[in-house]
């Protein structure tokens, strides 16, 4: 498909980029960051842990009625799955929006990194729930959603293979290793209760992710490069 056609088929709300072939998914509706029930659920899981939260407490925190809850969700588990799915869809929208602001894989990944750092900084409760809270959930579906998100991150990094000088020389598990490094670092710091400090580590994570694809010297530049324009993703306000 010609580049121009690929650009026209893309739907996005951020600045238009020149990268093609990576459609931006639509934003979830309702917006999980505006919906009272979903906000209440995330806050409660953050405060008490998933197993300690019940439907009554969700409804009470949200200021809603049980009828309104039942109108949308079957039970707590269904509410959690839908909320997490909405959050992850929003995450993908954000990542792809940032990625498409770049002119090549390096710029795109760099923009992604900074956008994710903003996301971690602005939504610490959500990050805690996604990274740690769902680890202890008995619901297998929730753990699968967590793994899927991490694997999605690996696919974005793996786009660098096409950008590598010698794609065959890149280890097969390079992207998974990089994404796993980021995820485990995040998990490790949250488990220890220390500051994640996303804006302090983003350049290091970019260096780690790009090393297998572009080599040591080029990747080391990432430790010094400034934040790129287009990495600040703004969500449209709710109409």
């Amino acid at each position, binding site marked *: 498909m010609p580049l121009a056609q690929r650009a026209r088929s893309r739907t996005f709300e951020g600045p238009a980029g020149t990268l093609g072939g990576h459609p931006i998914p639509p934003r979830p509706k309702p917006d999980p960051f505006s919906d009272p029930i979903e906000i209440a659920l995330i806050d409660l899981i953050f405060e008490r842990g998933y*197993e300690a939260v019940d439907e009554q407490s969700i409804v009470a925190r949200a200021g809603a009625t049980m009828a309104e809850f039942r109108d949308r969700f079957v039970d707590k588990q269904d509410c959690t799955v839908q909320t997490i799915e909405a959050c992850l869809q929003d995450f993908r929208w954000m990542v792809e929006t940032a990625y498409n602001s770049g002119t090549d894989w390096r710029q795109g990944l760099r923009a992604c990194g900074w956008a994710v750092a903003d996301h971690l900084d602005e939504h610490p409760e959500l990050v805690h729930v996604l990274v740690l809270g769902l*680890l*202890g*959930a*008995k619901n297998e579906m929730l753990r699968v959603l967590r793994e899927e998100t991490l694997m999605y991150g690996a696919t974005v990094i793996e786009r660098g293979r096409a950008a590598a000088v010698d794609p065959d020389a890149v*280890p097969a*598990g390079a992207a*998974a*290793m*990089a*994404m*796993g*490094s*980021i*995820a*485990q*670092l995040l*998990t*490790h710091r949250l*488990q*220890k209760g220390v500051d994640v400090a996303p804006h302090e*580590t983003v*350049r*290091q*994570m970019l*260096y*780690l992710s790009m*090393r297998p694809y572009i080599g*040591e010297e080029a990747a*080391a530049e990432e*430790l010094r490069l400034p934040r790129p324009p287009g990495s600040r993703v703004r969500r449209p306000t709710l109409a």
Partner: protein
Amino acid sequence: MGFHRLATGDANLRDQPVREVGFGDHHLGDLTQGHRERIAPGSGTAAVIQEAIREGFDQVGVAAQVTVVAAVEEAVEDSAADARPLEDQTYGQLLVPDLSCGFDGGATEEAPNLRVPKPPFAKVADLGRWREERRAGIQRLGNLASNQKLCLQKMSWSHYADGGEISRNAVRRYPAHVARLPQALQNAPVGQTRVSREELSERQLERILAAATEVFAKRGFQDSTVDNIVATAEVGVGSFYAHFDGKDECLDYVCGRISAEAHAAIAAGLGDGGSWAERLCDGLHPLLAFASANPLAARVVLLEAQTGGPKVLGRYATMIDEVVDFLRLGREASTLDRQWPPAFEEATAGGLVWLLQERLVRGELAEVDSLFAELAEVALEPYLGTTAARRQIKATLSASKQT
């Protein structure tokens, strides 16, 4: 029939022909006719008993002898209290069957042959020693279950008056399942040394830990219950709670135990000295071999531990920190002109654990050598460069094949 207890001071007994005499639970009612004939009236019970003992009682079983010994002991006690010597003045030399001579051939599990060859007799210096030897003799019947001994001790003389096979049949009067305790109720296999309470507790703990590892790995920690564990371990719930407050503490203990075993595997692979790269490889390969050989244990430590309580999470975090600290030593060992960002080892350690978790979930731990090569290159390459890293990996794999 009347039972005449050999009571002290009962002068009437002296002249009583011996018919049936009872001593507590035992009675010598049915003495063999031969004995009766040899014993003249007025000889006194003691003489009768002595005569019977002297004959060796080789036609009756050990249990009968035990019975007789008990009876004689009682008679001696009463006589001594009465200050009236029994007919025979040789109580100092009273003969007691040596019950340690064991059983003759043909014993069966249900009814060990109680017929004893004419036993050697041991002289008894005094009553106290006699009692001790009697007790020892009963203990030496140890191959019998405790209830069998009880049965035998309670049996009356008349059960085996005919001697010989009577004794065996007497035991057979009790069904096998009564005569012998079920294995599960015995403290120890019959005839073997009893297990101490401490050792029993230790064995239970090992069973619980093995079961907990299996249950946590297969069901997931969150979905596991104490009931699952005790059912798998085949122990009681009380036994579990004698060791742990709950499944959280159990998981922590399991993780600690597995971690110790993993450290031992690493230590076993490490030689004396060696470069940082050599030590990394020499420790990593046996560690992966350990994980491959113990996939359930690996799953508990690498996956399920992240869903445990604060203590277990702390232990998991400590494990990561140990890897980070070791990787950071690579900076000193490196001769490359490179700068590593502050969080580099932290991220690398996380990546190594992540890769291991992925292989574990996919059931690919068995390919130890290929997994080792992949992980070792991730760890070594930033500090040694690709060529040197692969050379070190190759050397380690060659060495491991030779051992």
